[in-house]
């Protein structure tokens, strides 16, 4: 027991400090525990033999030459290890009648996308495995690829999975008239068509296919030599992976341990039970030896799941004075060849977001998921919400244009006012807090909106080669996935709660075990800040443990901007329990009654006295356990599970200015301002980092990235030469700021931030590109708005351009000869 001399000497509050991230030194230098760094005695390496064809039957596989290579341990076809019998899980059956094809770990008799695995080579080194994989001879009979969603749904179309009888996976409909949350959108629109005081705006937008391109390629190591089978994997979801492996493969769950060590990014791309994870496991079981699989970058681009890929047909009715009266959304969403872990649910998340921040009286959402012979799609940063936000924010500009209204004025007229919160939307969500006016006012001022409009007018008048365009996106999103009951109502296969446990060590240090699983977000820093404030201990006295199902046995992992808004609250709840458990012991030590104690800055004090005891001293006291009250356990550790009552709804106003070179079509970023309301901020530096990275990815969708296939179903963008990721050199310095309306649905008042930048920025950029050149007759340009497309749209009498206008081949030059296989090898380098 100690008495404090200065009980008011409170430590500096950690929450709100821009702490440098404590995990960065080891992560950035790579001197840490990436899965591929794992070295085990007797470790074997595998390489997957993959189909070059999008759609084909397998007539035979000759493994004899591969088996002859020195250092080869085994070559297995799917049947040899039972990989063709596996049904990889989809946890989100969005409708009762959803059609689910079997998704094997390796294809047995038929391949359904280019890159699908057909055999596996096991060798003593990764290099030998790769050499041998090239010697496996597979005899294919090519089938017609299925590449176009609209064609795929027509009668008589070639079927990806003939046993399903259709290429339609599921149709999911929301109608506010039926739900009772609004009127009937079909009626509202048809009424508007015959109403002289209304207009009806119809547009088709295309969400191109993207690749998440996480920095660390996927890797898995499985060790079957202990009592528990241990899997290390570069995954976002170690807990879900463990449970799903047990369910999928019939393994006893208590004989499995999954570890996500340091994971180098995911962006949704590592929310999966990957076929390669299962193959690694099956091979390790077959041989009784530890086995490693690490993908190459090309394998990653080709086979790790893709994102987006929708055709959006949108109809809005609006009165001539600018009040929206109805919105109808019809989507086709490309699932690819199979269903991923949450793939079919991704476009459905958009159902709640097309109405965005606007008061829309009648709303209908109708999405059909379609199978094609392409790599499957699943979650990618924003998952469903960027697609919806793009659709509505583009449509708002188009409607404003037809109305002859200033686009921001049109938004203002229709958005939810700050004094109308909490607000229940037409899609049945209740937005707890927000202030769109405040964020917009600040953004407009930082941007100098009026000044830039003036500059735009001047350039237009002069006929400058470089025209200025201004684009708006006033977005919100739903994140902090998710209230378990809501997920249940959407037929999702799990809950949305999160857990945390706090272990008070004898020396007063604190271990916090969390169920969320960081892969670059900075959890170790932000959670340490929360715990430091909650328990009044030093920031450096806290260690955050995660990603190992042995220590963190209960959790639902990291996605959907849930780590802070759900996982962080579990940490707070666990800390509250620690204090609650410590209280009777403190009272005992201080010889006071519990009612006379107060806890502040890490100490229990007897009110009105200078007597007190620190929580870290209590940890030592219960470790010794020499003297503690009767009837309680000598333990102040605690575990808490938090199930959120609502999503969190960050919002913001993003303003983008671009210069378009009207001679070449080149778009350069000119100015980007965003003011985001993400609720209370734990670490401003981390929030700004999340916004910057999110902006880069959202801008990249608008200007740079596309996973394109040729007419045979071959991925054209199969290397980072062809899949044009922007770098810092292509972007500008962003002007970011925050307004704050604290969330009222969690005790920290926080909202999610991980996806905000990506969700918001894409439509702001495309709106700005079109705004720059609309006066030249341009109506629409498919994303990415490449220089070629921008130039073509200016040239074309239709005022539009997109993939259909382009040669379906990769460049023969560009260093590698790219994916063009028939080019000569090159001279002497």
């Amino acid at each position, binding site marked *: 027991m100690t008495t404090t001399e200065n009980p008011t000497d409170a430590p500096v509050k950690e929450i709100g400090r821009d702490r440098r991230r404590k995990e960065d030194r080891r992560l950035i230098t790579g001197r840490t525990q990436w899965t591929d760094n794992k070295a085990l005695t007797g470790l074997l390496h595998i390489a997957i033999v993959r189909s070059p064809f999008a759609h084909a039957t397998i007539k035979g596989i000759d493994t004899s030459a591969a088996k002859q290579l020195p250092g080869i341990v085994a070559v297995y076809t799917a049947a040899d290890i039972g990989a063709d019998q596996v049904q990889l899980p989809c946890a989100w059956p969005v409708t009762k009648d959803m059609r689910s094809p079997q998704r094997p770990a390796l294809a047995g008799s038929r391949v359904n996308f280019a890159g699908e695995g057909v055999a596996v080579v096991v060798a003593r080194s*990764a*290099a030998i495995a*790769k*050499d041998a994989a*090239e010697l496996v001879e597979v005899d294919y009979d090519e089938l017609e690829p299925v590449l176009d969603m609209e064609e795929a749904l027509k009668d008589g179309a070639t079927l990806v999975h003939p046993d399903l009888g259709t290429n339609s996976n599921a149709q999911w409909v929301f109608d506010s008239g039926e739900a009772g949350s609004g009127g009937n959108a079909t009626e509202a629109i048809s009424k508007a068509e015959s109403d002289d005081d209304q207009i009806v705006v119809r547009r088709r937008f295309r969400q191109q296919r993207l690749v998440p391109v996480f920095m660390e390629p996927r890797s898995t190591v499985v060790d079957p030599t202990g009592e528990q089978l241990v899997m290390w994997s570069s995954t976002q979801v170690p807990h879900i992976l463990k449970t799903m492996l047990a369910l999928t493969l019939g393994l006893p769950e208590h004989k499995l341990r999954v570890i996500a060590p340091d994971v180098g990014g995911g962006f949704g791309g590592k929310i999966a039970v990957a076929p390669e994870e299962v193959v690694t496991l099956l091979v390790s079981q077959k041989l009784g030896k530890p086995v490693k699989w690490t993908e*190459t*970058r*090309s394998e990653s681009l080709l086979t790790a799941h893709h994102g987006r890929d929708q055709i959006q047909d949108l109809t809005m009715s609006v009165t001539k004075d600018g009040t929206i009266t109805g919105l109808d959304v019809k989507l086709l969403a490309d699932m690819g060849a199979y269903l991923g872990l949450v793939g079919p649910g991704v476009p459905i998340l958009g159902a709640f977001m097309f109405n965005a921040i606007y008061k829309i009286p009648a709303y209908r959402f109708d999405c059909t998921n379609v199978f094609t012979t392409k790599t499957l799609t699943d979650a990618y940063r924003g998952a469903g919400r960027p697609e919806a936000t793009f659709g509505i924010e583009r449509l708002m500009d188009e409607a404003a244009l037809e109305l002859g209204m200033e686009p921001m004025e049109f938004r203002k007229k229709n958005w939810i006012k700050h004094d109308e919160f909490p607000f229940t939307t037409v899609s049945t969500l209740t937005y707890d807090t927000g202030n769109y006016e405040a964020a917009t006012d600040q953004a407009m001022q930082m941007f100098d909106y009026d000044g830039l409009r003036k500059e735009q007018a001047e350039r237009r008048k002069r006929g400058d080669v470089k025209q200025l365009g201004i684009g708006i996106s006033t977005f919100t999103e739903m994140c902090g996935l998710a209230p378990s009951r809501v997920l249940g109502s959407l037929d999702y296969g799990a809950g949305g709660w999160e857990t945390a446990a706090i272990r008070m060590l004898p020396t007063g240090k604190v271990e916090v075990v969390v169920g969320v699983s960081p892969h670059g977000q900075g959890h170790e820093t932000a959670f340490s800040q929360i715990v430091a404030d909650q328990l009044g201990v030093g920031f450096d006295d806290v260690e955050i443990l995660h990603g190992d199902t042995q220590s963190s046995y209960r959790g639902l992992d990291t996605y959907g901007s849930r780590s802070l808004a759900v996982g962080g609250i579990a940490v707070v709840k666990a800390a509250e329990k620690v204090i609650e458990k410590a209280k009777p012991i403190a009272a005992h030590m201080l010889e006071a009654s519990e009612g006379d104690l107060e806890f502040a800055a890490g100490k229990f004090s007897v009110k009105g006295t200078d007597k007190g005891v620190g929580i870290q001293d209590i940890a030592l006291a219960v470790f010794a356990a020499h003297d503690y009250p009767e009837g309680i356990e000598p333990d102040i550790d605690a575990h808490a599970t938090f199930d959120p009552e609502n999503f969190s709804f960050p919002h913001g106003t993003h303003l983008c200015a671009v210069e378009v070179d009207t*001679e*070449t079509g*080149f778009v350069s970023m000119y100015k980007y301002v965003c003011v985001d309301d993400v609720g209370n901020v734990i670490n401003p530096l981390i929030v700004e980092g999340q916004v910057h990275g999110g902006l880069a990815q959202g801008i990249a969708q608008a200007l*740079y990235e596309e996973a*394109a296939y040729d007419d045979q179903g071959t991925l*054209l963008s199969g*290397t980072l*030469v*062809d899949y*044009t*990721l*922007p*770098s810092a*050199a*292509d972007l500008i310095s962003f002007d970011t700021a925050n307004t704050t309306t604290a969330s009222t649905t969690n005790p920290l008042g926080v909202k999610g931030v991980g996806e905000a930048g990506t969700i918001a920025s894409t439509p702001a950029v495309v709106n700005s590109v079109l705004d720059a050149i609309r006066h030249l007759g341009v109506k629409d340009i498919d994303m990415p708005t*490449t*220089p*070629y497309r921008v*130039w*073509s749209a200016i040239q074309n009498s239709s005022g539009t351009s997109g993939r259909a*206008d*382009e*040669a*379906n*081949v*990769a*460049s*023969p*030059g*560009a*260093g*590698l*000869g790219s994916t063009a*296989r028939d*080019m*000569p*090898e*090159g*001279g*002497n*380098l």
Partner: protein
Amino acid sequence: MIPAQFDYVRPTTVEEALQALRDGGDDAKLLAGGQSLLPVLRLRMADPSLIIDLGGIPELRGVREDGNEVVVGAMTSHHDVTRDDILRQHVALIQEATKTVADPQVRHRGTLGGALAHADPAGDLAAPALALEAKFVIAGANGTRTVAAADFFEDYFATAIGEGELLTEIRFPKYTGWGARYEKFNRVAQAWSIVAVAATIKVDGGTISDARIGLTNMAGTPVRATAVESALVGQSATEDNVRKAAQAAAEGTSPTADADAGTDYREHLARVLTGRAVLAAAG
């Protein structure tokens, strides 16, 4: 990304390198900076049995003056090219183009000779070399021979370097006092050129007295825009004159169509970028 197996030697003289090439025969490949070869090996688009690393041959590095010429060793890195005072003074165009190659990491590893010998039509150094009328010194079993730039680039990834030979030097005539501009057009900063234009211009008293213009990625080899060059000479360097002359930029080219650009767009870019490059070089 694991290449197929190969043997590796690191000679210390050109003579040793040539001997290694003779010993290795068809299946030997020379490694300069490795910025194209290593990705090709890792993607298994090539699987040579012997790699001859030229990185240990000091005589292949460096820039020197030799009378009316500037001589650049084939293994001189892009980074060194961008920093060299002799080149800045006499062959500014190659320096300007080199500054646009990829990123600092690549420029530290990649070499002038390696890039030219690779002869990627989208690579940035061939068109300037052609425009500058560089000479390529090629060593082989029977000593050295010199090939003019116009004869050096034969096709996509194909040059006049024969079997058992290696490029040792690139010799540039001096263009002292000429303006230079490499106008590169690509989608992202690190990408290869969709089209680029290399221009070096001599202006005397406001009048263009001489012009050299090379085009990147407008055919399987770099192309000289001779029609533009002759249209420019004798003209005053006004925007109107230059743009008018640049209309001939796509003459004699045969660009490909791919996802980044159609043929007509490449031809259009060649005209626009030629105008811009010449104006900047003449400015």
